[in-house]
């Protein structure tokens, strides 16, 4: 079953809900290694996204994703604004003018989004950022693209969470957490946590 604009809108809405619910949790994670605003930032951005969402339901999925990205860039700020903004922007661009998308299109779009995040933030693998949750999720989607969408989305969500947990013992080398040096080891990366929620929302919104 192809993925429609409505599906994408449902995903964005669910992600917005979950970010709102996780606001304190993400902020607490950022208190430990950063400046205590990641949950606030994401919630602010996705609250703004939620307001423009109704007007986007009628259009193309690519246009919706691009608008989400632009809204994030112009409302979030901080590190996560340009990064998630770029993710959605490139994700949308990758979809072009298609009216619907397949699981393979989704995998391609996520990869394009990830490439955008890397180009913007210049994080290497194991720098302990959202990239370390996004990369395994993108790979899981790609390697499951041929099979069932539900299964692919489940694999992506699990891979993101595994990525988040895998880097927890590492020392951060990008973003604010890097200022902590060795003291960053053992703390969950806030961006990896919000990326995990992204792929979990994608699974739960589309993977019925």
């Amino acid at each position, binding site marked *: 079953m192809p993925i429609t604009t409505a599906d994408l809108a449902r995903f964005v809405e669910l992600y917005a809900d979950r970010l709102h619910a996780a606001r304190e949790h993400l902020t607490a994670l950022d208190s430990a290694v950063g400046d205590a605003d990641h949950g*606030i930032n994401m919630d602010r951005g996705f609250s703004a996204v939620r307001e423009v969402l109704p007007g986007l339901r009628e259009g193309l999925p690519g246009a919706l994703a691009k608008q989400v990205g632009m809204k994030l860039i*112009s409302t*979030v700020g901080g590190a996560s604004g340009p990064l998630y903004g770029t993710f959605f922007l490139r994700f949308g661009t990758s979809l072009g003018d298609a009216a619907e998308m397949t699981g393979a299109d989704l995998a391609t779009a996520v990869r394009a989004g990830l490439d955008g995040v890397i180009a913007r933030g210049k994080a290497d693998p194991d720098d302990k950022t959202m990239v370390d949750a996004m990369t395994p999720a993108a790979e899981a989607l790609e390697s499951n693209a041929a099979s069932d969408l539900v299964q692919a989305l489940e694999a992506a969500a699990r891979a993101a969470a595994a990525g988040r947990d895998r880097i927890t013992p590492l020392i951060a080398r990008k*973003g604010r957490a890097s200022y902590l040096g060795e003291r960053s080891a053992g703390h969950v990366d806030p961006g990896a946590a919000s990326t995990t929620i992204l792929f979990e929302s994608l699974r739960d919104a589309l993977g019925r």
Partner: protein
Amino acid sequence: MKKLINSTDRVVEEALAGMAAAHPDLLRIEDPNVIVRKDAPRQGKVGIISGGGSGHEPMHGGFVGLGMLDAACAGAVFTSPVPDQMLAATKAVDGGAGVLHIVKNYTGDIMNFEIAAEMADAEGIKVKAVVMADDVAVQDSLYTAGRRGVGGTVLAEKIVGAAAEAGKDLDTVAALCQKVQDNVRSMGMALTSCTVPAAGKPTFEIADDEMEIGVGIHGEPGRRRVKIASADEITDMLVGPILDDGVIAKGDTVLAFVNGLGGTPLIELYIIFRRLAEVLEERGITIGRSLVGNFITSLDMAGTSITLLKLDDELTGYWDAPVHTAAMRWGA
């Protein structure tokens, strides 16, 4: 959380409205949360803009005015502003001679300013950016996001603003800003945490007998957590790494800047300055100019930072030039 606010959502907007009401002779507020010098744009003058998360007041909005910034972008508390703000500021101050972005080295600030510069470029405005990264608490290595921009930014904005006011061109003011960056070093410490309004509780827990050495201006944890010490010992812990960094040496003349982080009263900052003057004298360094007060703060955090800028005649001249902003004013 005990704060003089109405709602955690409206802190920045209402503070800007207060600034506009208090300083109508100096500035105006434009959407989205940009503080613009009253008489901007000035034809033929290089525009100087800066910006960053709110919560560091008076930086940057308090530095908008004659001889300093043409505009400042106020992000959400401790969150880099968004590119729309920098673009709006850039357009508001462009008088045809180009615009300098003074950017503090934080991942978010860098990326958002970069996007804004791309957008301004697309609109045909000449933009240069200089990144301030003066905090010696962070090791300047490949394994970090690099040194943070802190107190040196205040000095850069004053000095560069004076050069722009004097009619220098974009390349010259950008080079001057880089010169300040190359000659300025800072380090800070906290006695208490700050509380981000929207978070509602202190960013970090700290015991009554502990302090954080090398803290960032967003309450980022510092180099190390140690037992609380005397003002003199604390001063030594801050000046030591600054001087060890090698930029400032025996025989130099410096601008000595003791900054309060928001919750520390002036009387304590002068106690720090006393020891700072003593240490510099011991090390054969002359204090040519000084600045003491709350200029780059971290909400209500109790603590201090020390910034030393190596002076020469050019920097001293621009430092002494007239400035008229809400938070820094002389000769005008």
